[in-house]
């Protein structure tokens, strides 16, 4: 169970990345599946080649960021739709990741790298049998909280405001002198850098990297973001970020319990992720469920309509929420205070 919490906390790194693109930049970025494996593959092969684990982890993060850079360039310079641009990169990354895994000192071609006999950032925990204990939860949790704080800090800078404006109203952003090409590319790099970091840490935690590692990771990230935002709301950035971390942990723990059930196999995870995302989407669109969540979570105020996702084709579009909120607000309070 605490092992699942460990893993949920690690996935939170990826979920924070997904939060940046889907929620803040309003960019449906599917690069994630590719950049996650880029992280696991790069870190694993670096460690395999004797690079210190911390350096290898940073390398994994950079590999993810470079995947994000590719998507950003395809979208901004060549005007390819976000979804298509990121699918293209996701596909390309499959080959690139295979190449990365084949960079071992022995020159062998690989689709997986084992790290069980290698020194990783978790070696200390493993040797003391502390993986999946309160110690590991505390240590990994502290690391993730620091990353979450950095994300919140980033969004609260001038550059961060520009990123939020780019996602919210690109036309206005340009009129305000914001170079949206730059804000988009940098945000995609930061986001996929976090995803790569998640891959780097995951590879060391589970002790291996496999070419299929990334498949479906975008869904897990989305499920965490939707779940976390539904519980904590998006009124304050820091609360939304905490929500994303908690969402990832809840998601992973839920999977852990589901797997206890005998007839559910490991290979059922992907279907379960998909079903969970569908449920989360449907629930977050339902007024009743929203009211219930609002009542159950002290962090969400009942009057706090903007968080509610409305029934729209793209539930990730921030516009949709505010439009619904605006409709609700004007309907419920006809008197507009303050206007003369």
């Amino acid at each position, binding site marked *: 169970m605490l092992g699942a919490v460990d893993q949920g906390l690690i996935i939170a790194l990826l979920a924070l990345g997904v939060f940046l693109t889907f929620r803040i930049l309003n960019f449906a970025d599917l690069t994630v599946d590719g950049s996650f494996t880029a992280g696991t593959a790069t870190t694993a092969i670096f460690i395999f080649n004797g690079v210190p684990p911390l350096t290898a982890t940073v390398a994994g993060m950079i590999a993810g960021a470079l995947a994000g850079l590719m998507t950003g360039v395809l979208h901004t310079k060549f005007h390819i739709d976000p979804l298509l641009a990121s699918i293209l990169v996701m596909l390309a990354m499959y080959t690139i990741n295979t190449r990365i895994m084949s960079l071992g000192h022995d020159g062998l071609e690989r689709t997986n790298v084992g790290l069980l006999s290698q020194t990783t950032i978790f070696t200390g925990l493993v040797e003391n049998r502390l993986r999946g204990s309160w110690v590991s939860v505390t240590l990994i949790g502290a690391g993730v909280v620091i990353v979450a704080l950095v994300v919140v800090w980033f969004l609260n800078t001038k550059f961060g405001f520009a990123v939020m404006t780019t996602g919210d109203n690109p036309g206005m952003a340009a009129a305000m*002198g914001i170079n949206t090409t730059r804000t988009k590319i940098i945000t995609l790099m930061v986001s996929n850098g976090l995803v790569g970091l998640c891959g780097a840490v995951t590879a060391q935690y589970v002790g291996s990297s496999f070419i299929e590692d990334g498949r479906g990771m975008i869904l897990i990230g989305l499920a965490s973001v939707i779940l976390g935002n539904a519980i904590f709301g998006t009124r304050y950035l820091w609360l939304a970020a905490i929500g994303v971390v908690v969402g990832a942990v809840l998601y992973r723990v839920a999977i852990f319990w589901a797997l206890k059930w005998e007839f559910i196999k490991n290979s059922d995870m992907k279907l379960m992720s998909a079903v969970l995302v569908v449920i989360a989407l449907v629930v977050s669109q339902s007024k009743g469920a929203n009211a219930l969540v609002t009542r159950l979570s002290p962090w969400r105020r009942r009057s706090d309509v*903007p968080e509610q996702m409305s029934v729209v084709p793209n539930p990730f579009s921030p*516009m949709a929420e505010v439009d619904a909120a605006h409709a609700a607000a004007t309907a419920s309070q006809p008197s507009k205070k303050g*206007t*003369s």
Partner: protein
Amino acid sequence: MLTLTGVSKTFYPGTANERVALHDVDLELATGDFVTVIGSNGAGKSTLLNIIGGSLPVDQGTVLIGGKDVTRLPAHRRAARVARVFQDPQAGTAPHLTIEQNLAVALNRGRRLTLGRGLTRARRASFAEHLATLEQGLENRMNHRVGLLSGGQRQALSLLMATFTRPDLLLLDEHTAALDPERAELVLRLTAQMIDEHRLTALMVTHNMEHALRMGNRLIMMHEGQIVSSLTPEEKAQAEVSDLLDWFSQKKGGLSDRTLLT
């Protein structure tokens, strides 16, 4: 302050949908000029403003702002000098950002995007002062999301965001058209007040003849992609709504003549 020379713009050239939006337009604004722009639908008024703002490239001609050739600069690189308020209240603000965050973005218009803090106590205090001039009570709602404001309040905020950094040039495209008469009047009053206070050079498009006469010191009328009439400050002071309406009917007549000829 602004010089347009021989500016032309055609949409979808060489196709069945070809539309000449601007044809060989010359326009000169001195510092402090406030020019109102009238003209029927499709006359090219918005295209003119879009070209000045940089959101549309020209086919031909040059655009000079403050003596500097900006013809090839994209919108975001002109923003330090040019501020805009759009017709759609949704267009000029970011609905998910709070009022103070929107103002912070506007304050940073055209400046470097650093990793410094977006909002500080000092900046909040100055925003509150500016908001108070709108007399909408927005200074007490600075951490509310802009998406929850009414159209009129949003437009007043857009106007503040466009003017409080004293841009060289202010572009207003039917910025009161989406508001009810009362709000429109309020936003218009604020417009006059801010342009006056900051001594801004401005272009204001409107379909309201009375507004076009009341506001600003010069007036131009556009028709089929050209500036067909222009009133000097002296002429404008004398002109009445009926004169403008006469102009319009003359142009309509001209149009049908030409249609017959071609």
